[in-house]
């Protein structure tokens, strides 16, 4: 395949008074899938649009395979892009949509339809090739958009929240499919999303952005287990923030003393950052340290939301089998299961 590496060097971009990107740097290797993750307004979409050529940076350079493409117009960049939704051309059939990029590249009708069918086959929609796009479901439309973006063998694939307008079930299926296709074609991919679960599930590396800068870029495991900042810790996965007091490097939580992992100069009153799966909830007949608010059944596991005597909301994730007696309103004892916790300033 024609896949290339991508690098952004010292990109800055302002909109009015807002710094969308502030001296932003990113490297994506050949065949790698990197996700940019962050809250809305963090600059992730701007970064992707600068790569696509749909926005022009105020400063910095975009390199594809070490070639500076900063001044190449969007339609000559040879990048496949999948948008949030509704980007298909409603006047064209499915196969004509997929063949559009090749038509613009003056490929003969026979060849471009052959290629379109090849890609529709890959996304499991070859049987729908003669239909119009409004006859397809949201998930099918995004599959067609993916096929269209890949049909002209782009050097880079750009995914701009392609799943955000879809239903939960379709979203999960399609993200797995995108990943399988991306691995098998080996296309270098930049994927922008605000959904941490999505980013973590299918990426080689995830870059967490905030206010136009990259806070941390790392593998999903590393981000989850070794977050570089309190922002990353709270944004990636669910994180309880429990008020505690630090002394001699230890914090006391639910009656147990555990080692505090400090990032900076946290001291005195702090928040202990604890994952839901590191908290156990046990029903007590005596006075416990919390009360159950709700129990959500999630299949293999259940999510228990409790409130401690001082009003803190605590979330715990346990196997469903062990939560049968945790009814809303019942008195429970919370315990921490790990021997170390991250702490952050209040």
């Amino acid at each position: 395949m024609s896949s290339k590496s991508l690098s952004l060097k010292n990109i800055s971009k302002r909109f009015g008074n807002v710094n969308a990107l502030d001296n932003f740097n990113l490297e994506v290797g050949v065949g790698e899938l990197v996700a940019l993750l962050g809250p809305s307004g963090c600059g992730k979409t701007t970064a992707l649009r600068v790569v696509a050529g749909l926005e022009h940076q105020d400063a910095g350079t975009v390199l594809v395979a070490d070639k500076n493409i900063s001044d190449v117009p969007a339609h000559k960049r040879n990048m496949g892009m999948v948008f949030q939704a509704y980007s298909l051309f409603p006047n064209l059939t499915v196969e004509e949509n997929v063949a559009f990029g090749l038509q613009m590249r003056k490929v003969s009708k026979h060849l471009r339809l052959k290629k379109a069918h090849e890609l529709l086959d890959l996304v499991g929609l070859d049987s729908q090739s003669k239909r119009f796009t409004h006859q397809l479901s949201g998930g099918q439309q995004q599959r067609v958009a993916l096929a269209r973006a890949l049909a002209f063998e782009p050097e880079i694939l750009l995914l701009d929240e392609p799943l955000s307008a879809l239903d939960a079930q379709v979203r999960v299926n399609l993200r797995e499919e995108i990943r399988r296709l991306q691995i098998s074609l080996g296309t270098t991919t930049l994927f922008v999303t605000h959904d941490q679960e999505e980013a973590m599930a299918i990426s080689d590396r995830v870059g967490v952005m905030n206010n136009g800068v990259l806070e941390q870029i790392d593998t999903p495991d590393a981000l989850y287990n070794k977050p570089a900042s309190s922002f990353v810790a709270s944004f990636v996965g669910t994180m309880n923030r429990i008020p505690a007091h630090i002394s001699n490097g230890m914090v006391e939580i639910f009656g147990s003393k555990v080692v505090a992992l400090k990032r900076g100069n946290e001291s005195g009153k702090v928040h202990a950052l604890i994952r839901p799966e590191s908290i156990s909830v046990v029903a007590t007949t005596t006075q416990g340290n919390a009360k159950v608010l709700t129990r959500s059944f999630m299949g293999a596991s259940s999510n228990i939301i409790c409130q401690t005597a001082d009003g803190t909301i605590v979330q715990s994730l346990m196997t469903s089998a062990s939560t049968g007696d945790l009814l809303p309103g019942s008195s429970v004892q919370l315990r921490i299961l790990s021997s170390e916790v991250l702490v952050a300033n209040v």
Partner: protein
Amino acid sequence: MAKALRIKFQPPLAITLLILGFFVFLPMLSAFEYSIRTPLTGGYGWTHYIWAVTEEDFLHYILRSMWLAGVTVLITLFVLVPTMTWLHLSNSKVRGLIDGLSLLPLVIPVVAFAVGAQISFPEFVQNTVLELPFLYFVLALPYAYRSLDIGLNSIPLKTITEAARSAGANWLRTITSVIIPVIRGSVMATIALTFALSLGEYTLTVLLHWDTFPTWVTYVAQDNILGAIAISMMSLIIPFLILTVITLFVPERTIQGRK
């Protein structure tokens, strides 16, 4: 969710059809009936119609009005489609201003407009009948603008444009191969509105001392009202064909398809 296909009796619909029937179809049919009366024999006949088509001015003026209307349509599309696409994409503050300005021709009295044009336009503009399409364009602007606006608002224009560009289409191809086909219904409606308005414009044309089909019909009506009605009836066929075209290419509703 499927809806019952049967058309039930519905009061609001009945009212609309009744009003349209009384104020539109009834006058039309009466005028037609009147135009085929033959008072001498007491029956009906095509006398006035035969008179009209054998009149050599009929073809002359209708062709002239049609090519003027055609030029107006071309001016309208060339000016409005790229400008309005740009206005919609740019999200610019001036869009509200232009939206308002496009309504201006609606409230300007044609008399003032015509006199003003006569005074202010340079000689070479006033010497050619091509002055008319530009003025017709202005008169049709409020409707043409609204109609294209509906089309451009009903599609996710920004996303579709960016999808076309990132797939390799330059601006010209984006407009001709993507935007225009996608808002086909709107474009057809714009063409029909502009064409019909240009074909029927009377006041401005008369005030500027040009002769077109409508001024000729009025001239004929002075001596021969039945002949004028017959001519009008026949000229109706042309916009009617255009109307059929619009109805076939019904404007797209929003693509998202709300439930």
